[in-house]
C-alpha cells in the first residue's frame, strides 16, 4: 500500500461571483516512503494547488470543491473532517512555503515557533532557547549558533535563515512527508544553493519523503528522483527525473525543455513557446475545456 496515493484529484476554485475554474483536473500521484518527487509546471499549472490539497490547506470557502481521492495509507482524506486533517498535519505532513514572512509569526521568537511544532517540547514547558529538541532541530538545518538564533525574531534573520527556520519547523514534528512549494524562489542564487543542500541533507538523514514543487527545472533536476509535469491542471508526463529531462515525450515537456535550455545553452537561440504551439498543446491537454 503506497504511503500516499492521490487518484483522480480535481479541485474547483471560485473566480467570480458566479464563475469557477477547474484548477486541478484528474491528477494522480503515488509516493512511497523516502521518495523524492518533483512537481513541475508554469504558473497556473495547478502544481501549488495540488500541493495544498495534499496538505489539506486549501481555502475553506465553501465554493472550493475537491473531488477524487487522497489516501495516506488506508486513510481517505477527501471529505474528511478538519480534525483528521489536523492530525495528518501534526504528525505526517510538513509543509514549507515560498514566502517565510507570511508563514512566520513576526512577533514570536523563532525558537518558540519551532517549539510550537513539537508537542513534547510544548508540554515540557521549558524555555525554547534551552530546550534540547528545539536546538537539535535548528542545528540540523545548519543554523549556526542555534541557541542565539532561537532568541531572534524572524525579521532579525536573513532570508536564507528564515527559510531554514521554516524547514526546521516542518521537520520538527518528524513528519513522514514534506511538501515544499517553491522553497527557494525568493532567495538569491548563493543562498538557494545552500538552502537546497540543507533540505537535501535533512531529508536524506531523516528518510522523509519529499514533494518539491517548482517552476525551476534545475532545482527539480538536482533534488528529485521522479517528476510529474503539470500543465493546465493536469499531469501531462511523469517518469524518473533523468528520463523526463533527457527524453521528454509529451509536446509540452519537450517545448518547456527547449525553452529552458535556450536560456542557458550557448549555442541555441532564445526560444519561447509560440502562440500556435501553445494552442495546440492546450487542445491536446484539455480538449478545449478549461
Amino acid at each position: 500500500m503506497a504511503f500516499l496515493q492521490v487518484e483522480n484529484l480535481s479541485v474547483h476554485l471560485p473566480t467570480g461571483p458566479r464563475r469557477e475554474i477547474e484548477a486541478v483536473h484528474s491528477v494522480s500521484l503515488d509516493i512511497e516512503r523516502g521518495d523524492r518527487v518533483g512537481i513541475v509546471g508554469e504558473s497556473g499549472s495547478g502544481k501549488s494547488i495540488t500541493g495544498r490539497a495534499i496538505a489539506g490547506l486549501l481555502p475553506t470557502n465553501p465554493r472550493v470543491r475537491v473531488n477524487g481521492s487522497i489516501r495516506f495509507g488506508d486513510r481517505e482524506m477527501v471529505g474528511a473532517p478538519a480534525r483528521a486533517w489536523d492530525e495528518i498535519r501534526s504528525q505526517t505532513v510538513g509543509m514549507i512555503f515560498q514566502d517565510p514572512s507570511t508563514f512566520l509569526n513576526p512577533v514570536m521568537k523563532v525558537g518558540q515557533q519551532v517549539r510550537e511544532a513539537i508537542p513534547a517540547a510544548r508540554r515540557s514547558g521549558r524555555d525554547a532557547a534551552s530546550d534540547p529538541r528545539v536546538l537539535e532541530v535548528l542545528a540540523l538545518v545548519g543554523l549556526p549558533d542555534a541557541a542565539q538564533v532561537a532568541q531572534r525574531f524572524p525579521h532579525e534573520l536573513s532570508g536564507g535563515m528564515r527559510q531554514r527556520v521554516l524547514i526546521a519547523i516542518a521537520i520538527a514534528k518528524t513528519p513522514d512527508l514534506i511538501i515544499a512549494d517553491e522553497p527557494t524562489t525568493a532567495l538569491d542564487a548563493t543562498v538557494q544553493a545552500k538552502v537546497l543542500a540543507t533540505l537535501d541533507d535533512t531529508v536524506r538523514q531523516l528518510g522523509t519523503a519529499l514533494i518539491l514543487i517548482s517552476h525551476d527545472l534545475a532545482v527539480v533536476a538536482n533534488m528529485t528522483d521522479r517528476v510529474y509535469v503539470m500543465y493546465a491542471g493536469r499531469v501531462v508526463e511523469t517518469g524518473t527525473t533523468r528520463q523526463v529531462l533527457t527524453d521528454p515525450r509529451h509536446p509540452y515537456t519537450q517545448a518547456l525543455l527547449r525553452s529552458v535550455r535556450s536560456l542557458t545553452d550557448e549555442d541555441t537561440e532564445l526560444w519561447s513557446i509560440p502562440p500556435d504551439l501553445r494552442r495546440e498543446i492546450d487542445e491536446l491537454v484539455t480538449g478545449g475545456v478549461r
Partner: protein
Amino acid sequence: MLLEVRNASKTFRARRGAGQVHAVKSANLTARPGEFVAIVGESGSGKSTLARILLGLIPLSSGTVELDGVPLSRMTRAQRTHYRLNVQAVLQDPSGSLNPRKTVGRSIGEIVRLHRIAATREDVAAKVAEALAHVGLTPAEHFLHRYPHELSGGQRQRVLIARAIVLNPQIIIADEAVSALDASVKAGVLNLMNSLTQRLGIGYVFITHDLPVVKKVAQYVYVMKSGEIVEEGPTKQIFEDARHPYTQSLLASALSLDVPA
C-alpha cells in the same frame, strides 16, 4: 549618446538611527544605445539603488551621472526633459508596476500626453497602438481596454516595456524585468528586448540576480556586492575567466539542468 556614472556613491540614513547604509560605493559605469549591459548582484548589493540613480529617481551623495557629458544635477529643465525622454525604465514586480485602476490604453496614453508626443485623440491612439505592436500585443484594440489583472504576467511585462518605448528612448534601465516570469515567457520577453535593439537601436542596462540569463543576452557585465562593483568585463570574460572570488561563487551556485548521477 553616452550615459556615464562616475564615482557614484549613495548613503542612506538607516532606519533605527543606527549609523548609515552605504548602498552604493564609488560606482563607475557606462551605457550606450544598442548595447546590452548587465548589472548582476544579490539582494543588498546596491544594484537597484544604482538603477534608480541612473534614472534620476534618487539623488547622489557624491559623484555624477552624466548624459553626453552633462551631469544630471546641473541640467536645465529642457535637458532634464531630454534625459527623461531618452532614458526610460522598466521596473520590477509586474503585479505592482501598473496602476490597477488604469486600462492599458490609458497607462500608455498618459505618457504620450505628458511629454506632448501627440495631442489629439487619434494621434495618441496611434502612438499607443504602435508601441503595443512593437511589443507583440496585437491586435491593439484587444488590449487597450484591459485592466492589469486581466493580463498574464508576461503580458503585463510587455505593457511595461511598451510604456517605456513609446517615447522612443535610446536607453532602457530594466530592473529585474524578467525575474518573476516562467521560463518560456522569460525567453519571449528577452527575445523581444533583443529585437527592439535591432529594430529601434535601444540599449539596455539590465539589472538582475539571474546570472545564467545574463550570459545569453548581455555584452558587458558589472558584478556588484555590498554596494561595490567588484568585477566588470565583457560577458565571455566574466563567465570563462572570472577573477573575483565573489563572481566565482556566483557562478558556482548556478544550478545546472543535468541530473546528477
